[in-house]
């Protein structure tokens, strides 16, 4: 039973690698295709999540728990990047709505 469990875990990890790589390919398509900037940012966010999942899998496969720290750091960076991009889009939208330059928006960061 224990041996079957270990074997099953190995197969599952292989299957999960394939699923994540497929998902990554679809995400890259969305990143390249757009059509709006928001779509691309969503795709980047998704890529960070897939990276976390991949690192988690790799950590299970190798039994090396130190990779977990990489995954957590990637989660942090992904979140910050998404927030920064969202603010960028939001400011661009505000500037466009009032028909002014983005630079007069510098007081409320």
């Amino acid at each position, binding site marked *: 039973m224990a041996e079957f469990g270990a074997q099953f875990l190995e197969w599952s990890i292989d299957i999960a690698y394939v699923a*994540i790589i497929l998902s990554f390919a679809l995400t890259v398509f969305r990143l390249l295709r757009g059509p709006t900037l928001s779509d691309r940012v969503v795709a980047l966010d998704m890529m960070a999540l897939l990276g976390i999942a991949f690192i988690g899998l790799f950590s299970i496969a190798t039994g090396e728990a130190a990779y977990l720290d990489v995954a957590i750091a990637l989660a942090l960076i992904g979140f910050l990047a998404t927030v920064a991009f969202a603010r960028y889009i939001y400011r661009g939208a505000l500037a466009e709505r009032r028909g002014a330059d983005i630079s007069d928006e510098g007081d409320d960061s």
Partner: protein
Amino acid sequence: MIDFISALIVLIGAAFALIAGIGLFRLPDVYLRMHAATKAGTLGAGLMLLALALDAQQLEVAARAIAGILFLLFTAPIAAHLLGRAGYLSGSPLWTKTRFDELSEKYDADGRKLTGTPVEDLRRDATKPDDRAT
């Protein structure tokens, strides 16, 4: 037995990751794509970390993995909310078959305030009355 359970969790997480990718590929507008990426994607990554926590069988690894899962679960809605609002205000088109756009006409001309909601000010500029909106 632990191996078996974490293998099942890995498979479920992989299925969610794949579904999120397919959703990102297939869904018709940015809000629906965000729905796929945020929910299914977070669940996929979180389940991988949960499987790692179970598989390592050490308290410190499990604690870090669960902290990572909590971080993902806390930040995903914030990021999605910010992106959704930014996308809406920047005019990302809705799917042509969308039937209700409850936000339409609710933002003032400046894009800063929602009218008709008890929350008068979405942002911190209550002290700075905005004369350009009128």
